[in-house]
């Protein structure tokens, strides 16, 4: 009884404190105090009211660009995570060789996105003659590559760090490899999968934004941010930045909710 009350209080303050801080920052921003603190004028950092009015004036256009970004980020995240998980399954078959492969997979993260994007543009030109399709594909591949490593590394841990003798026990029951995977390895790796997703979800959005800078089609929140920054339209650029942050937060909260419900049900069992 006591503990639940404490958790509730904790939960409330975990929301209230940041919210209060956010409101203070918002007021400082709107009131121009933030601009004074950062030595920036209202052109470089426009007040929220101005940004809001731009968002509401251009809802249709923003949604169109947002849709393109969401598709690239989520499909890239899904494919990258699946490949990462698949790599981890293969690597977990033989720990001695597997861990080396996982290290190699994580080395891909050292290649900057700015370098990947133009290469993928040239590569995908040979896959499809339809620009809409291939520019989406090129962007998705880049996001996918970014997402592989964290899933591979974490899932590998989830598949190998088991309770002692758990696997041996399964084997004494003469369980098939598939059954071992289904009953033991997969459930054991679930928390690790969520750890990986919590890292790669923000990464997938940021990399989707950056690949859009270089893509053949002028579409996407990232591309709009760049167009407006380069042509000095900071207020409009900020509108898109706020939208992209909002997208990131919403997707992250959804992920946390899914994680919570999945993990809770595991405990009830």
């Amino acid at each position, binding site marked *: 009884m006591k503990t639940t009350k404490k958790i509730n209080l904790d939960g409330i*303050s*975990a929301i209230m*404190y*940041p919210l209060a*801080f956010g409101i203070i920052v918002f007021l400082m921003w709107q009131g121009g105090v933030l601009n004074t603190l*950062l*030595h*920036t*004028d209202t052109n*470089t*950092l426009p007040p929220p009211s101005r940004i809001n009015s731009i968002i509401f004036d251009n809802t249709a256009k923003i949604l169109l660009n947002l849709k393109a970004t969401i598709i690239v980020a989520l499909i890239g995240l899904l494919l990258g995570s699946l490949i990462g998980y698949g790599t981890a399954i293969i690597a977990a078959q033989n*720990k*001695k*060789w597997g*861990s*080396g*492969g*996982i*290290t*190699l997979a*994580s*080395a891909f*993260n*050292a*290649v*900057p*996105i*700015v*370098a990947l994007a*133009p*290469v993928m543009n*040239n*590569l995908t030109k*040979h896959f499809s003659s339809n620009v809409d399709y291939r520019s989406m594909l090129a962007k998705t591949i880049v996001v996918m590559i970014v997402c592989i*490593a*964290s899933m591979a*590394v*974490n899932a590998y*841990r989830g598949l190998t*760090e088991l309770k002692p003798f758990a696997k041996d026990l399964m084997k004494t029951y003469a369980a098939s490899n598939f059954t071992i995977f289904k009953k033991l390895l997969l459930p054991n790796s679930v928390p690790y999968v969520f*750890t990986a997703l919590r*890292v790669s979800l*923000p990464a997938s*959005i*940021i990399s989707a934004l*950056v690949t859009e*800078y270089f893509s053949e089609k002028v579409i996407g929140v*990232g591309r709009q*941010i*760049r167009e407006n*920054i380069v042509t000095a339209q*900071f207020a409009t*650029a*900020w509108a898109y*930045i706020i939208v*992209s*942050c909002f997208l*990131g*937060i919403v997707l*992250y909260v959804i992920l946390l909710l899914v994680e919570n419900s999945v993990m809770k049900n595991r405990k009830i069992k």
Partner: protein
Amino acid sequence: MAELNKKKESNPFVTLVWTLGFFIIWEIIAFLVEASPSIRSPEKVLPHFWKIIATAFDSKKINGSETAIQLVWLNAKVTLLRSAQGFFIGASIGFLLAILMSLTNVVKKIAFPYLMIIQMIPILGMAPIILSFTGDIDTSRVVIAAILTFYPVATNTLAGLEAVEKEKHELMYSYAAKKWQLYIKTLIPACIPYLFTGLKVSAPLAITASILVDTLQGGIGLGCLLSQSLKGAMTRYVFWLIVVISAAIGILSYLLMGIIEDLVSSHKKAERACKR
């Protein structure tokens, strides 16, 4: 976080075979690209790895005074220095922030969601504000690299500080240890493995971030050269050389953190052994 260091079974032979395997696959794909009739300029899709390496040893002057590798190295040095500065500042701030967050619950609760949000602001959006604040593009580049690196360090260190078992706390308090003693004697040493996990993530991040930040304005830097190698009149192999070298630097920075960690932890072990 890519907690690779948890289990280190670094067998040099295994790593070698994997690396070789990777390059064999690269060469096969490059061969297929070259053989494909629809791909007119294979070096724009994926050239042979040995040709990229050959470019490094080519004595032909790319811009009158430097060969390809000299030019890349000249720019890499600048980017490396900037990313090292950014990494150092970012890691320090991340570490201090983690301690501050573990000290006061209020700071932790306030800061945590916002640290997350800062990571989601595209660099391009932050850049003009930081530029007008610092008034100098190179300082801005360092600042942005720092902003992008402190998050993994802060979160991992905090996780480490929180992971120290309660019993250790209570034991120290029973010795009537002061709070700062508690931190210096138990908490900070205990969170060092976690700190290095964070450092290993953010070291390559600092480098890729610096390369991205380079493209904000012209000048010297790997990112600048990268875009120049696509825009200007020079062979496409310079571009590939940059890709290979920047990836190599990123991997090396990761390995370097591992080496430092080994040094620190072996030092700690030796200390403990002496005390016994």
